[in-house]
C-alpha cells in the first residue's frame, strides 16, 4: 500500500512542508493508494481534529472509540448522483450533520442539506439547491423557507436579476416557471426523482 501526504492551507490549496510550518495552521491530507482517506487539521503542530473519508457508516463507531472528536465524510452512490454525508462529533456526541449531493456527470454539488443534529431533521432554511446548465455553468441557486418551500432564486451570473419564488406565475415580467424545475421547488427531496 502506498501512502502519500499532502499539506494544504485551510482553503485546500497545496503548500510545501516548509510553508505549512511557517503558516502554523494547515491541513494534512493522507492518501492511501491515491485515495484520500483522512484530513488532519493542525495549529502550531498540534492536531486539532481528523476528518475520515468512508464508504459506509460501519467504521464510524470503531473510529470514535479511538478519536471521540472525529468527523466523517461517508460517500454513497445512488444512480447518477453521489451523496456525501458529513458528520462531526465532539466527545462522541454528534454535533453537526450535512449532506452534499453531487451530480456525477456535471461533477457539481446540486444540493446541500443541513440537519439539526439533535432531532436529525433538515433545517430547510439552510438548504441550497443549484441548477447547472450542460456546460457546468451555475444558472440558479435556490434558498428556502423554514417550511421547505422555495423563498428566493439567485442568478449568480447576472446582476440584479434575482427573484422571489412568490412572484413565479404572478409577475407577468417573470418568465421562469417551475415546469422542468420541480426538484427545486422544495428543499426536499435530496435526490431528484
Amino acid at each position, binding site marked *: 500500500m502506498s501512502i502519500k501526504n499532502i499539506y494544504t492551507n485551510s482553503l*485546500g490549496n497545496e503548500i510545501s512542508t516548509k510553508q505549512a510550518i511557517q503558516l502554523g495552521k494547515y*491541513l494534512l491530507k493522507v492518501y492511501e493508494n491515491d485515495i484520500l482517506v483522512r484530513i488532519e487539521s493542525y495549529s502550531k503542530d498540534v492536531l486539532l*481534529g481528523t476528518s475520515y*473519508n468512508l464508504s459506509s457508516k460501519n467504521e464510524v463507531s470503531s473510529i470514535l472509540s479511538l478519536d471521540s472528536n472525529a468527523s466523517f465524510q461517508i460517500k454513497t452512490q445512488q444512480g447518477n448522483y453521489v451523496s456525501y454525508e458529513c458528520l462531526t462529533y465532539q466527545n462522541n456526541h454528534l454535533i453537526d450533520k450535512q449532506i*452534499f449531493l453531487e451530480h456525477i456527470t456535471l461533477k457539481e*454539488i446540486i444540493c446541500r442539506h443541513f440537519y439539526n443534529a439533535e432531532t436529525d431533521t433538515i433545517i430547510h432554511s439552510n438548504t441550497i439547491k443549484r441548477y447547472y446548465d450542460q456546460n457546468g455553468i*451555475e444558472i440558479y441557486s435556490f434558498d428556502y423557507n423554514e417550511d421547505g418551500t422555495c*423563498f428566493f432564486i439567485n442568478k449568480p451570473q447576472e446582476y*440584479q436579476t*434575482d427573484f422571489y419564488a412568490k412572484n413565479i406565475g404572478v409577475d407577468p415580467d417573470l418568465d421562469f416557471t417551475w415546469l422542468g424545475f420541480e426538484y427545486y421547488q422544495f428543499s426536499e427531496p435530496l435526490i431528484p426523482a
Partner: protein
Amino acid sequence: MRQRIDRIARVGVRENAHAARVRQRGDKTIVASALESQMDYWITVKNEKYPIGKFASLEDCNDFKDEITSLIKDFGLPTNDIRFQGSSLRTALANDVDIAIFITEDQVGNIRKRIIDELQKEYLVNSSINSPLIQKQIEDFEKTVKKIDEQIANGFIKNRQFGKRNNLTFMQNKYERGILPNHDLDISIIIKKQGFDTPPYLKF
C-alpha cells in the same frame, strides 16, 4: 426629434447610460418615447429626493433607509455610500427597489475577506472553528470562493454572498424584519468605477 435630442442633451447622456445598459442586456428594449418618459420621471424623483412610485412620502422613504442601513450594518458591511439605483428611479412601474452599497477598490480586499470568513461560518454551523472542514465542504467552499471572485472581477457582489445573521440570508432577514413589506428589493455591492457603476443614482 430635435426637441428630444435637446432634452437628452439637457438631462445628460450619462444619466441615461443605465437605460442603454438595460437594452444591451437584451431583456428589454426602450423606444424613444418611453426613454423620454423615464427621463421626466427621473427628474421628478431627483427633485423629490426619493423613488416616488415606491414610497408614500419622503418620511416613509427615510424610515426605510434607516431600516435597511441597520440591516446592512448588522451584516458588517459599509454604510457610508448606499444608493438607490435601477428602474425605481425611472418608472413608477418598476418591479422592485434596487439598492447598491458602493465601495472603492481599496475596500475590496477587506470586504472579500469578511465575506469569505462569513462563508466559512456557513459550513461550520454547529462545529467549533477548530473542527476541520470535511473534504466535500472544502471543495464546495473553494468553488464558492471562486464564484465570489468572478463577481468581484465583474464589479459587483450579490447579496447571497453577504453571509447569514440569525441563520438567515440577507433577503430572509429583510423579510423577517418586515422591511419594505409591499415591495421587492434587490441589493448588491458595487465597486466604484467598474462595469456596474452606472447612473442614475440617488444617494441615501
